């Protein structure tokens, strides 16, 4: 498949790259380009360049003020999903490194400050994500220890060694999902949980990156009248409805 495009005229490759960046490729062209991209630095670079143009396109629009209720609706919905995290506790790691301005030549000072600042920033970002995951794990273990309700999830043919448990604390409508022995995924994919009622799935959260195939997540929505919980493989960022293979499922 990739060999097919290697013989293609450069202008046609540019057409495919432009269509890809805009999300305008038809399915057959998309499949051809996807097969070709891993082997073609030029096309990947071109798509990135076109992509930076596409991202900038909305800048031409006149901004619109939303109704005041929209802000409240969003914050209330988000606040109902998660507890507020105090900002102050997390503010210190963002402090930029300080250096005596008189001690170094300006160019060296800039290079050191930029390098250290970026390195420090990336480490703190990774730490923030890991800390949130660990907190979820600790809260989930506390629910188990307190004797919360539990349901078992079994791995499907796509992940036969995998398993999982759904645990729910008394008085908390949103359960925790433990999953173990899930196969590692490439960076462009994530596991996504679904709550299914009478055959209708609703997105229930992305599983944060796990360790040794183990993932813990607090589901985004209450179980309500759901009869099934499942986990599928989805593109990074998740999907609005399941598109990938089911790896875990359990009846409630």
């Amino acid at each position, binding site marked *: 498949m990739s060999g097919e495009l290697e013989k293609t005229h450069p*202008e046609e490759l540019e057409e495919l790259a432009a269509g890809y960046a805009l999300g305008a490729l038809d399915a057959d062209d*998309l499949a051809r380009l*996807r097969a070709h*991209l891993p082997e073609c630095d030029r096309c990947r670079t071109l798509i990135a360049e076109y992509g930076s143009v596409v991202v900038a*396109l909305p800048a031409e629009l006149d*901004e619109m003020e939303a109704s005041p209720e929209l802000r409240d609706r969003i914050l209330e919905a988000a606040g109902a999903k998660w507890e*507020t995290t105090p900002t102050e506790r997390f503010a210190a790691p963002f402090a930029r490194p300080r250096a005596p301005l008189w001690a170094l030549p300006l160019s060296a000072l800039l290079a050191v400050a930029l390098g250290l600042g970026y390195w420090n920033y990336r480490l703190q970002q990774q730490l923030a994500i890991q800390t949130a995951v660990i907190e979820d794990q600790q809260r989930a273990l506390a629910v188990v220890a307190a004797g919360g309700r539990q349901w078992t999830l079994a791995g499907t043919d796509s992940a036969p060694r995998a398993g999982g448990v759904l645990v729910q604390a008394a008085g908390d409508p949103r359960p925790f999902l433990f999953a173990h022995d899930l196969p590692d995924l490439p960076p462009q994919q994530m596991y996504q949980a679904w709550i299914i009622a009478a055959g209708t799935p609703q997105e229930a*959260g992305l599983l944060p990156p796990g360790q040794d195939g183990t993932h813990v997540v607090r589901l985004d929505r209450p179980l309500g009248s759901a009869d099934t919980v499942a986990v599928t493989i989805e593109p990074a960022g*998740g999907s609005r409805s399941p598109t990938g293979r089911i790896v875990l499922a359990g009846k409630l």
Partner: protein
Amino acid sequence: MSSPTDPPAARRRNKEVAPVSDLAARSDEDLMALLQRRDLQALEALYDRHHRLALALAYRVVGDRDSAEEVVQETFLAAWRQSASYRPDRGGARGWLLSIARHRAIDRLRKARGLGQVAELDESLVDHRSPDLTQLVHEGSLRERVAEALASLPIEQREAIELAFYGGLTHTEISEQTGVPLGTVKGRVRLALEKLRLTLADLATEMGGRA
């Protein structure tokens, strides 16, 4: 009356929490890191900073204010729920939020027109070393230059870009809608994007980026 989940009420209960105004001075990258830490105030700050353009984009796609507000709501709640999937090495927060808004708006538009979903792009296959103009260039300058660049395109090229970007149409669908041969549509999209790329690359160079 405030509910237990009312964000302002939650802030009042916890004296450790910094006023939102403090977060307003933070960079988008800092706010995204806080969002990944599930900091609700970071979501407020990101909303305050970016919702107007997200709403304008959604409105341009769906053409209805109520639907556009629903798209913005979905966008920021998706950002809240899926913040773990944000990758700073693949572009800025504004571009990420606008991409979610556009995807959701187009999804809604295509559903309303009885069209199938457009496939997700696989970001991992793309080289992301190109400059993110939305981070590099002052908002006012970018707006002016993008508008100029679009206005300088031949009308048929601009139409092709707009049908793809705001209309969510594929090459074939543009061809069917306009009656223009498929090969011509592909060529117009390419030429338009290439001209925009060159114009905006000049801007990035002016601003010190790598074009």
